[in-house]
């Protein structure tokens, strides 16, 4: 590849680089900087250096937010993956026409506004909503379940919103599997379950990892779902950060929380690359 040449090209590159620096890198540095300042009484930030914000996070209260949000997000991710995997697997193994239809059907919710879809759940989950009415009609329960405004509603809402995000990466990774692999393992005497456990699962782990990443982080940040379905008792990390900025005016604390969230994200991404390398390396060593 040659080096950058041409005035026009250099100009274009400069514009792009400046934009990315000015509107991505710089703002994030600002967030980092603010996380080390103090909150003001009538202003948002007072230029007094402190690490109090980070200390405050490790104080029990905010640690709890982190932990409970992470727990909720983990559960959401897990549930999404558990439901998505068989679906994606079956879909990838069906004929081309079914695949096209199935994929289209999954893409549509993927493209629709998640806000609208969360709203659609309210009518279903509320005390005199459709789910309760159905359950009562079927005689499965006597009095309506209060699902709305609980952690369960938030979880259902998250899984509902994020499921397509889990299906797609797993689907694409199963699709990439060579059909010969399964046949080969069966020829070698493995049972269906063993083939699955030892061949398919490890080879589709990048897809699973992708599904995890695409569901875990949104689950931490999507504050409107607990807002609509959770009755404001469930404080997700995203809502906590939003509150610091738009209600409490504790921008330094909000910034510190954001920095930690971003750091966590990078760590997970690094872990993901490591997993990917481990999966691809044996392949490259000519095992198959």
């Amino acid at each position: 590849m040659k080096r950058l040449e041409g005035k026009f090209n250099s100009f274009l590159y400069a514009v792009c680089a400046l934009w990315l620096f000015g509107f991505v890198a710089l703002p994030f540095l600002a967030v980092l900087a603010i996380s080390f300042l103090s909150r003001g009484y009538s202003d948002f930030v007072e230029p007094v250096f402190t690490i109090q914000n980070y200390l405050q996070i490790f104080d029990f209260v905010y640690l709890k937010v982190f932990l409970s949000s992470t727990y909720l997000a983990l559960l959401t991710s897990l549930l999404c993956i558990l439901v998505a995997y068989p679906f994606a697997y079956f879909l990838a193994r069906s004929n081309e026409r079914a695949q096209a239809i199935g994929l289209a059907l999954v893409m549509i919710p993927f493209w629709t506004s998640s806000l609208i879809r969360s709203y659609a759940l309210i009518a279903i989950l509320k005390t005199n909503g459709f789910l309760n009415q159905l359950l009562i009609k079927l005689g499965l329960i006597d009095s309506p379940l209060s699902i709305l405004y609980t952690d369960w509603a938030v979880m259902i809402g998250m899984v509902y919103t994020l499921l397509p995000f889990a299906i797609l990466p797993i689907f694409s990774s199963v699709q990439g599997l060579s059909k010969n692999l399964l046949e080969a393992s069966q020829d070698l005497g493995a049972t269906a379950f063993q083939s699955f456990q030892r061949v398919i699962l490890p080879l589709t782990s990048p897809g699973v990892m992708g599904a995890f990443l695409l569901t875990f982080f949104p689950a931490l940040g999507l504050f409107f779902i607990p807002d609509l379905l959770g009755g404001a008792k469930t404080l997700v990390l995203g809502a906590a950060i939003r509150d610091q900025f738009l209600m409490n005016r504790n921008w330094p604390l909000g910034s510190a929380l954001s920095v930690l969230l971003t750091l966590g994200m990078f760590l997970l991404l690094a872990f993901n690359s490591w997993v990917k390398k481990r999966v691809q390396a044996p392949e490259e060593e000519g095992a198959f």
Partner: protein
Amino acid sequence: MKVFLCFIFLLLSPTLFCERLVIFNWTEYLPSEVIRDFEKETGIEVKLSSYESNEAMYTKLKILRSKGYDLVIPSTYFVEKMIKEGMLQKLDHEKLPNIRHLLPRLTGLPFDVKNDFSMPYLWGTTVLSYNSEKIKETPDSWKVLWKSDYKNQVLVLEDMRETFSIALKSLGYSSNSSSPTEIREAYDKLLKLKENVRLFSSEAPKQAFINQEVTLGMTMSGDLKVIQEENPGIAAIYPKEGFTIWLDSMVIPKGASNPQAAHRFINYVLRPEVSLKIALELGYSTVNKESLNLKAAAQMKENPLMNPSEEVLQRGEFLTDVGRSLLVYEDLWQRLKVE
């Protein structure tokens, strides 16, 4: 495509070229009929944005550097804070002849002695509502919310000062306490209350009561009007330890782009019949002394929620700015949400 765009442009052109008034108000706190009548009379187009709490309103205004909105309707203690921080502009009383209709006891209040910056809009109280079909014995105190019988059945407002107030009052303190020990005690009490709380909300309490998601809780006096229309079994009382009386006022932010239109709107709202219309529609109490004499006010005068007696009002307390101890409240409020 071009035809379509032209069509849309024509559809909106009346709005593009006329004068605008941008109002920032509590959600569903201004009847659309009043807005339409005002628009028809003056030709000024009204745009409405809403907030759920004073804190959110204040933060948004701070972020916008007091620009972007022509009229805002904060509660007393925030008017106080905003005046102190220079976020508001002075009102021109010459443009507001209808001031003379205001109830004397609502003007000249300590936070804005000469009403230089604010004009009363609506006032009301925060009461204890309960489902009389499920709760046979009429409650008389905030303490009933803490009873273990009501696990997961209580509604609490998404309002820091108001919610702290019920705890402070139940401990015998003032709603405007700036003592960190007292505030902390209130916080501990609220922590216990949280076991009973189903939902923190200032916007959806009406739905929560109508749909029977909650059995009892805090509500604004006006909410009862909507609630009782759909579910007459819901009643309300004024707790004996006390409750908050609040007043929402109209103010004009310093950076408003159309203060003239804002003045016209304020003067319009101060008309007795308009003030009464707003109060009746929303279920709150009118700030206008003439309104009570109008024929339409007959039913309202009998309603203790819309027209509480002097005796009852003695037990009520206005919320005032608590200065720097606001930070103590805010910190504990965040902790409450999290634990």
